[in-house]
């Protein structure tokens, strides 16, 4: 028994060391969130004092959040975020799924070239083609609209690639059985492949929604009137309007903008992390 306890002591020390290190990293990861939430609850005089306090003497929750919501139409920005990300994801699925199915399961002329093109486009970040996209939308007079925010992302080569890889693993027998049952190729996509692809589609959905909810570069270029602002643009607009000194409401605004995705993440964290890992490794 003595020997067993000796082994346990060593294990305990190791485990304690591990937790100390992990807690340090966790503090680094959490610090900005803690500062954000804590400041959003503080009245101005406490923010400008030079002592570190996490919980305010006098709670200014109502004042700060009220001011944040009344100074800028944050709810509208959030709604824009929802509209834009969902529209993008919906259209991406509508376009990518048939293409991915064709690339995975149908023999057609140009399939190889099409797949090589997909692989090639995977290398190009969208930032690289922002200039011509902008000029194009300028000439068709679509800048500063929901279309400007959504249209360029309706085609996702990454989505096509990801779903194609997934469909490659779906047995041919399943497709042949559906054909025997008299389904058309298009209805095979929606009635056979789509249900089979839910895990991959979820992963892609997480990837797409997180990317476009948080995207700043393209909305910054594509829209200028604040009726179309997405959440990140909203935070910037708020900061610039407040000249960056009214920190209580600013942090309240940041909290409001960050909260929805974080809440979603905390609710379904395994799905999110697996989705990102899955799309990350491809």
């Amino acid at each position, binding site marked *: 028994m003595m*020997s*067993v306890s*000796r*082994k346990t002591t060593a294990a305990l020390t190791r485990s304690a060391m591990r937790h100390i290190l992990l807690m340090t990293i966790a503090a680094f990861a959490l610090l900005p969130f803690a500062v954000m939430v804590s400041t959003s609850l503080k009245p101005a005089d406490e923010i400008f004092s030079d002592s570190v306090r996490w919980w305010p003497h006098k709670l200014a929750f109502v004042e700060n959040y009220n001011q944040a919501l009344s100074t800028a139409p944050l709810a509208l920005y959030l709604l824009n975020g929802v509209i834009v990300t969902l529209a993008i994801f919906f259209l991406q699925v509508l376009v990518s799924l048939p293409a991915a199915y064709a690339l995975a399961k149908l023999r057609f002329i140009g399939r190889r070239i099409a797949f090589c093109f997909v692989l090639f486009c995977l290398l190009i970040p969208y930032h690289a083609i922002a200039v011509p996209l902008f000029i194009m939308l300028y000439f068709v007079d679509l800048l500063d609209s929901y279309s400007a925010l959504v249209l360029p992302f309706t085609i996702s080569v990454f989505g096509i690639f990801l779903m194609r890889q997934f469909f490659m693993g779906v047995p041919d027998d399943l497709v042949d059985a559906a054909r025997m049952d008299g389904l058309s190729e298009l209805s095979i996509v929606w009635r056979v492949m789509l249900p089979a692809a839910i895990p991959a589609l979820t992963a892609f959905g997480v990837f797409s929604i997180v990317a476009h909810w948080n995207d700043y570069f393209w909305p910054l270029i594509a829209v200028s009137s604040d009726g179309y602002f997405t959440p990140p643009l909203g935070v910037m607009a708020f900061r610039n309007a407040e000249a960056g000194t009214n920190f209580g409401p600013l942090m309240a605004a940041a909290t409001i903008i960050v909260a929805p995705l974080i809440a979603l993440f905390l609710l379904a964290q395994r799905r999110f992390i697996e989705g990102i890992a899955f799309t990350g490794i491809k």
Partner: protein
Amino acid sequence: MAALNIQAVAKRFGETDVLKRIDLDIRDGEFISLVGPSGCGKSTLLRIVAGLEQQTEGHILLDGRKVDAMRPRDRDLAMVFQSYALYPHLTVAENIAVPLTMRRMSTLQRSLIGKIVPSASERRREIAGEVAKVCDALSINALKDRKPAALSGGQRQRVALARAMVRKPSGFLMDEPLSNLDAKMRVQARSEIAALHRQLDSTFIYVTHDQAEAMTMSDRIAVMIGGELLQVDTPDQIYQMPQDLRVAEFIGSPKINVAAVTLREAGLLSLTARGTTNAIHAAFRPEAARLTAESEGIFCGIVHHVENLGSDLFVQVKAEGIVDMVVVRTDPAGQRPALRDRVGVTIDETRLHVFRADNRRMPGTFRLERRR
């Protein structure tokens, strides 16, 4: 060389008892098999002996020394894993060298810098020599520079053996080392391992779920079921004098015939339908039974199926009212019963085993009452 004592070792995971106070003494140089169905705790026991897992209670003694607090590397035991666990990025020769480099070279010598330390290159040469010797012994010299992925199952198994042998451990622990081989390779590897044991003269503890492996290779067999050690004996004793109904049922292929019986008077048993709880059971192996004319059998039944293995003919007889099916071994050269024939079955009563309701063997001699 090592003698090994397992003293009252128990292992619990939460509420479940994986091992229930196991006592087992293994002699120096012995080949002992731990055999049992999957989940019986045999692999856990092996991992406790190796030091990969900590027992909840009890002690492990190596040559009389308690090693409970000793790490695996200090126990001087080698292990061959079911998956072989070869390092996939190292060549065969590098794989076999690992136990030596880990023990004889310092962290610095093993590192990249170690390549330029003169003492390290001397060590490396000495290790390479020992690796070559082991490769010769197992005739895997030609494979030395290959990666494990480029080897067949049988070759991998040899490399795993070589890695275990190279540091001349005092004992070998083998965790189902043949279960990933095809049937033909397995028979060949069986005799090779047995030969290796004779030659190395060191202690082997061999875990398997395959009773044929245990029967063919071991000095002694330890049968484990449900975390308990039911019987430890020579293969002959295990087969001919099972001390527990579950041992009798686990060892032998085809399976031993079991029928529920009631004890009439001193030593006289009568067959009853199986399934009655708290019943006494009689068991007899297929070779202890013989087909007779319908009128001469202890009981009779209908021939349900005939299995011809070439050397033996196994006849399945459906004996109404007693057991589901009785298997009788006959000589293929002799007379063959036809399907649906009515036949009688007699049993060599000297080879009849009787077990109490708690599954333990009931001593004594028994006769079977003829069933009319």
